[in-house]
């Protein structure tokens, strides 16, 4: 097999990757140590392998690694800033939204993408977004509450609350 070299940015770091033409993105990410990207159904149904590609969620089990050349990827490993968790991660902890944790990285990434696009989502929007990630512990209620809470805690909403309190 002839190897290819692709250049991707993962969690802000430029990475040259030597891959084979038929490699799937999921396999390369895990081989490179991004173990937060989970291997689930490998048919695009469960969403456990979701990562953000230029800010939008995709299933890495359905994408050839070669197609990621020149693109920007975000995995769960890049969501916290050092020791400081992302508000969605904080909310997942506060609301007990994590059970076995296998689907959690994908849920957090999908939620982050949603909140960046739509800072004050409705519950229906949150549920629609989370429907692409299956939780086999069947814990859906807490993640929905967590994402809605993270949206409320975002700086814009906090500003409003502060103004209300000052009045």
């Amino acid at each position, binding site marked *: 097999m002839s190897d290819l070299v692709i250049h991707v940015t993962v969690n802000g770091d430029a990475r040259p990757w030597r891959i*084979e033409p038929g490699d799937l993105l999921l396999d390369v990410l895990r081989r490179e140590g991004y173990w937060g990207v989970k291997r689930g159904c490998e048919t695009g149904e469960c969403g456990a392998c979701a990562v953000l590609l230029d800010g939008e969620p995709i299933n890495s089990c359905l994408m050839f690694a070669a197609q990621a050349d020149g693109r920007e990827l975000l995995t769960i490993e890049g969501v916290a800033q050092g020791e400081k968790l992302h508000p969605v991660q904080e909310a997942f902890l506060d609301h007990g939204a994590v059970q076995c944790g296998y689907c959690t990285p994908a849920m957090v990434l999908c939620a982050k993408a949603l909140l960046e696009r739509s800072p004050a989502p409705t519950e229906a929007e949150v549920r629609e977004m989370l429907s692409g990630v299956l939780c086999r512990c069947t814990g859906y209620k807490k993640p929905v509450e967590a994402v809605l809470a993270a949206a409320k805690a975002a700086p814009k909403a906090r500003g409003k609350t502060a103004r209300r309190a000052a009045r």
Partner: protein
Amino acid sequence: MFDRIRAFHRPTTVAQALRLFEAERRRGGRGRFLAGGTDLVVQRDRTLRWLVDLTCLPLGYVRRVHGGWAIGATTHMTEIEHSKPLLALADGILAEAAGTCGSQQIRNMATIGGNLANASPACDLAPPLLALDASVVITGPGGRRAMPLDRFFKGVHRTALNGALLVEIVVPAPPRGKAAWSYQKLGRLQSDIAVVNASAGVVLDGRGFCTRARIALGAVAPTPLRARRAEALLEGRRLDRAAIDAAAERAAAEAKPVSDVRGTAAYRRAMCRVLVTRALEECGHRAGRSL
């Protein structure tokens, strides 16, 4: 899984994509065009030796063209779902159908061209596009040509492409007059592969008579299809309860469903009648008629 693929090409122009496809085809071994991968990867075809990736081609667009809209073949479902002109076109049925093509992650990857070229009988975009009289533009060694979408599907996972490339989908402007449209899909969840899907479109005159009717069905035959006899039954008739029931009955009779894991043939035929009824009722309501 795809460890026997020896070449992965990423052309940036349509001409380059066709040249690479032809060169690989002459070299031998099985290969395919690839876009979002949401069907191709799942099919796990271990005989593939090469791929020509289309995601670098400049084919992601929704553009106004003379007499309608042109949609580039690699436009993602998400883009169609949120496209302002497509939300405004024909009661938004095309955008609505795109919004049911799997989860958000799938819709960020899957393309309109891939959805059609994969030629699944349950293809979500086919019923609305057939109801809208859409055509496809294909380019190959023999040049560039357009063909009506209902001549594009040849069987389960078979199309008229034969090595040519689907580059654009053209949706003509809907006819003038009081037109109304509907998209219906039956699945356990809206994002599932359809058990049955259907679209209808009617143009009504001032007295509520159908001057034009379109009924398109999915997942009830080897290819998505127009229920032409049901359409003929509606045209020239007032859109009322009796006409809707008769057309739905006729459409179900035109279906040739099979049994599979998602439903039996009998269930599909019964649901085909239900979805066509709902589609025509919704058209009626949208056109302001009480049924």
